């Protein structure tokens, strides 16, 4: 459904070129959920912005149902903008405080069609019902709702123009633990009911494992490892994926955290390390790591990892 092919994004700044995204490739199958995982500044939000046409790639192609979104003709582009919707992290910042909820939900519909008043109200009530809010919510303002309810409104707005792909940028990280589960369950129900495809950005690995069918682990703008969530989490092959998983504090007092798996700090995208960008922190780094960028090694049909160690390991 969505294919990101060798996409690169550089930003020129006075201090030099920020290499935010560097040749990232992945595909999101129809009705699947792909999670982009990585630490702050790794480029995962930049990738989402390019999918949403909010940024233009420096190189590479993004295809939606086989069509390059950068070269789409007007009508196709309009349809793409309707079929791809987004839910953002902060439901306090993403809803206009001066508009009533009904108007907020109506906006993406009105951008694409001119339904009559009755049809519009019916659609608003419909999507509010899907997210578990009463139809009367349409007459209220965002400040009259709690954080969890606001995120439901943001989801209703995204659903309103009947999208096929939803970009979810940290959709629950601003919410409290007890509310998070409600919203995650809601997103899963909606996906099953309407056959949606999700591209989710998250930093919480337990959430990603629970929520997504596939995962791409990003480090300093490159895909370190990608594949189906099960195998990647059960048998991570890239040292960075291993470090990430070892560093997650589990709700289990007998679990021992490993501090050793990733020493030091994340480098700057202004001046990424040579070769494998993870090599200064990697406990397994050896000679080629500081020289050559590791290619993605195919470990299984759809499981790849970019690490020099795998060259020897593979047949």
């Amino acid at each position, binding site marked *: 459904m969505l294919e990101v092919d060798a996409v690169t994004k550089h930003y020129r700044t006075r201090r030099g070129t920020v290499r935010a995204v560097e040749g990232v490739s992945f595909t999101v199958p129809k009705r699947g959920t792909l999670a982009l995982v990585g630490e702050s500044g790794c480029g995962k939000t930049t990738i989402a912005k390019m999918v949403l046409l909010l940024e233009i790639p420096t190189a590479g192609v993004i295809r939606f149902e086989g069509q390059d979104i950068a070269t789409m003709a007007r009508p196709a582009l309009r349809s793409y903008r309707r079929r791809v919707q987004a839910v953002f992290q902060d439901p306090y910042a993403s809803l206009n405080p001066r508009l009533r909820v009904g108007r907020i939900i109506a906006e993406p519909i009105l951008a694409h069609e001119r339904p009559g008043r009755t049809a519009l109200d019916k659609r608003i009530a419909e999507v509010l019902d899907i997210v578990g809010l009463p139809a009367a919510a349409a007459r209220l303002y965002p400040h009259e709702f709690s954080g969890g309810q606001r995120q439901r409104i943001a989801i209703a707005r995204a659903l309103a123009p009947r999208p096929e792909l939803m970009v979810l940028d940290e959709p629950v990280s601003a919410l409290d633990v007890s509310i998070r589960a409600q919203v995650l369950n809601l997103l899963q129900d909606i996906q099953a009911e309407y056959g949606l495809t999700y591209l989710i950005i998250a930093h919480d690995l337990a959430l990603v*494992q629970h929520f997504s069918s596939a995962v791409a682990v990003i480090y300093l703008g490159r895909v370190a490892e990608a594949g189906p969530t099960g195998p990647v989490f059960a048998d991570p092959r890239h040292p960075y994926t291993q470090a990430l998983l070892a560093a997650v504090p589990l709700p289990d*007092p007998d679990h021992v955290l490993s501090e050793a798996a990733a020493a030091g700090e994340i480098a700057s995208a202004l001046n990424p390390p040579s070769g494998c960008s993870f090599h200064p922190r990697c406990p397994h780094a050896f000679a080629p790591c500081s020289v050559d960028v590791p290619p993605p090694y195919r470990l299984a049909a759809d499981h790849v990892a970019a690490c020099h160690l795998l060259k020897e390991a593979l047949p």
Partner: protein
Amino acid sequence: MLLQVDQLRMYLHLRRGVLRAVDGISLHVNEAETLGLVGESGSGKTMTGLAMLRLLPRDAGRIESGSIALDGRDLTTLTETEMVREIRGRRIAMIMQDPMTSLNPVFSVGDQVGAPLRYHDIARGAVLRSSVIDVLRRVRLPSPEQRLGDYPHQFSGGQRQRIVTAMAIGCTPRLLIADEPTTALDVTIQVQIIALLKRIQQDAGLGIVLITHDLGVAASLCHRIAVMYAGQIVETAPVRAIYRSPAHPYTQALLAAIPRLHATAKRLTAIPGQPPSLIDPPAGCRFAARCPHRMARCTEPPPMVDLGDGHSAACWKLAA
């Protein structure tokens, strides 16, 4: 016992009414022990931490009743001058969540780490510089001698949290209040700060109150946990008991609601509804409206039931 808080009430007097931010909590912290204050936003955990330092929102915040005893001395009876000279930063230090906003951008790191040492007369002049270097070394900041003149923006998030920690432990406090010390950090940096806090505690034997919403971070750092809900403590227990045999329905619900690494559950158990307003909260159990085990008696305040081995929970279900 290092710290003993007894029936502490701290209310915020707002125009909309009286908000019962901390409503009758009791807890204690031993030397070299970490107590986790776990709860969701608005549960009163940060307000509890601030109340221990008597750092209350100006005009609005007031300690209504109860006591806060540090080494047997009741802090609620001290004057503001005594708090400033003898307690804050000296006997009790605090680390805040965001290391960018708790450091002053226009002063060098050496100045800021040295400030509490100078203020509390711990080091001056030529000794000050070596004391600052020493404390920065204790928090494992790389090459501290060369970086004393650098400013906060020249450090990464993880390094800034090390610097804030250095400011806190410089005066060898007895108690450290750490409010979400790793929440703003990435997971591979978070694990380093968790290890740092453990090491500092072992070296100095200080008590820590860790305020967090993250049940994973709490499990990795705490010896005991107090679970807060709507301004009250609903359950206290040694860390293993909280995770292995939680007694309060809220603790149980919270643990069931988080996705777990390497678990196979397809669906999370959500907690319906949301916490009550602390302006005019329900008279009985504050969790009752969301509780699957609710019964008639829950309209009365539940007793704190002693379950043995330092485990207690406030629930009618356990009182039978």
